[in-house]
Each structure stands twice: as structure tokens, then as C-alpha cells.
């Protein structure tokens, strides 16, 4: 039986805005949206999430430290890093699924 990737992907997505974890779910959703390329000016979160989205190898200690200080815990900062990274990955999953649907729609 093929792997049910859609179900597994949605299980990951639902955790971002879910009640579990310590960071504000609204902030996590915002980080995921920024990871997917949405504009945000909510600093210091936006700078870190956008850097993770665009060139994660350029993330600086200062960017992570600023989010750590604003949230007050390692765990909340961790969740925002994870949310931005997951947002970037799920965005690519969604775009690939859109392309697959386009190909199926155009099939004779």
C-alpha cells in the first residue's frame, strides 16, 4: 500500500497551530507563514523566520538570541525555528501537489 503522505503532512501542519507546545500558536503560525514566504514585520520573529526561509545557512546567533530573549525560553524559540522551517518545507510540498494536480487536470 502506498504511503499516505498527505495525511502525514497534514499531521505535521496541524501541530503548528495546535494547543501543544509552549510558544503562542499564533506566533508559530506566523513563523510558518514567513517560512513559506509571507511578508511580516513582527520583529524579532520576522527576521529569523525570513532568514530560515531564504538562506538558513546565514542565520546568526544574534537572530536566534533575539527570539530567545523575546519569548523567554529555549523551548519557545525552538518552536518558532521549527515552525519557520516546517513552513518552508510544507510550502514546497503544497506547490508540488499543485503542479501534480495541474498535470492530472491536463491529462487527456
Amino acid at each position, binding site marked *: 500500500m502506498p504511503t499516505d503522505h498527505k495525511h*502525514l503532512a497534514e499531521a505535521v501542519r496541524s501541530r503548528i497551530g495546535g494547543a501543544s507546545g509552549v510558544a503562542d500558536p499564533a506566533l508559530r503560525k506566523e513563523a510558518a507563514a514567513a517560512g513559506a514566504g509571507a511578508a511580516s514585520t513582527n520583529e524579532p520573529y520576522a527576521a529569523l523566520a525570513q532568514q530560515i526561509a531564504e538562506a538558513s545557512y546565514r*542565520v546568526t546567533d544574534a537572530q*536566534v538570541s533575539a527570539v530567545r530573549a523575546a519569548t523567554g525560553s529555549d523551548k519557545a524559540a525552538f*518552536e518558532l525555528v521549527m515552525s519557520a522551517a*516546517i513552513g518552508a518545507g510544507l510550502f514546497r510540498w503544497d506547490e508540488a501537489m499543485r503542479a501534480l494536480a*495541474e498535470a492530472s487536470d491536463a491529462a487527456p
Partner: protein
Amino acid sequence: MRLPEVDRGDTLAHRALIRMISAVSGMRLPDAARVAFYDQAFVSKALGSWTQATMRGPSSWSISERELMASLVAKWNSCPFCIGAHRAIAVKGMPAGLVEAAHADYRAAPLPELLRVTLGFLEKMTLFPKKLSGADVRAVFDAGVTSEALTDAIAVAALFNMITRYANALDFALPTAREFEKSADMLLKRGYGS
């Protein structure tokens, strides 16, 4: 930046486990495993389930082919930890020279055609996701890749577009080549679930 609590673990049980695995294996437990153990109420279990199913579950791609895909996504996203970790697993079931050639230029490497064409899709998905279209999918299908195989490969790339980003942002420590090799054996034996 490595967050101190991720490094040491957030529960007594995980702290003990991190110390125990490090002692038994004779190497520092890699940060990827520490992240999988951390903050388990949040997303790590859901992420571990999808990763395990994608990298070790049923698929027409071999485990080595999936690991090669992961290591190339890591290359496109400039993530040294993931390049090292997943190349080390890929070579367990594929000639090391072929993995090296694929990393130098997958288009010119003597890879199976289905894999080469799929890698082209995954590269575009990683670097220019908004530009993906039905035509890209049809080109992969025309080469003989099934919808199911392409979806399996897309899942590898989606996951490693997450993993490479948090590995970089959390500044994963880079193991030595020998440590990567040891971890590869562990990941083949135990998989990705946490």
C-alpha cells in the same frame, strides 16, 4: 545558535538517554537526534512519523536513492550536517563514486534515468518552488516515473527542506567522517522515528 536546553535534553529521561547513547556509541549524540527527543509535545513525533514512512517505508525508490535525494536537497540548501549525514547512508547501498558524481553534477552522473529526471524536479521544487508547473510533472511522467514514485520523492524533498533549515538555524555540530559513518549504521538500523 545551539539552544542549551535542546543540547542537554528537556526531561530527566531524555538527559539520561542522551548520556547513555553517547557513552555506548563513543561519540557525541548528533544534534538531529537531540532535536527528535526535545519538546515532544510539539511537532517532533509527527515529523518523525512522516520522515520514517518516507525514508524507510514502502517505495519504488531504494533507501540509498532516497538518502541521495535528501543529501542533494541538503546541498542545494547549503546544509553541511545533512550533506554529511545522508551521503554517509546513501553510500551503504550505492557505489561511493556514484554518490560523489551525483553531488558533483547529478545531470552528468551515470544515475538511472528515472532518478536523474526526478532530481531535476526536486531541485526546482527546492530552489524555485513557485515556478513548478504541470509541465514539470508531465516531463517526469514522460520519462516513466509513476505518480506514486514522484509523490514519494516530493515527500523526501519537502521533509529535507524543513530539516536542513532547522539544522542550519540551530547550528548542528558537524561530526567527523568516522562519526557520520557510525551514525549512518544507527540510522539504517533504527530509522527516524523518535
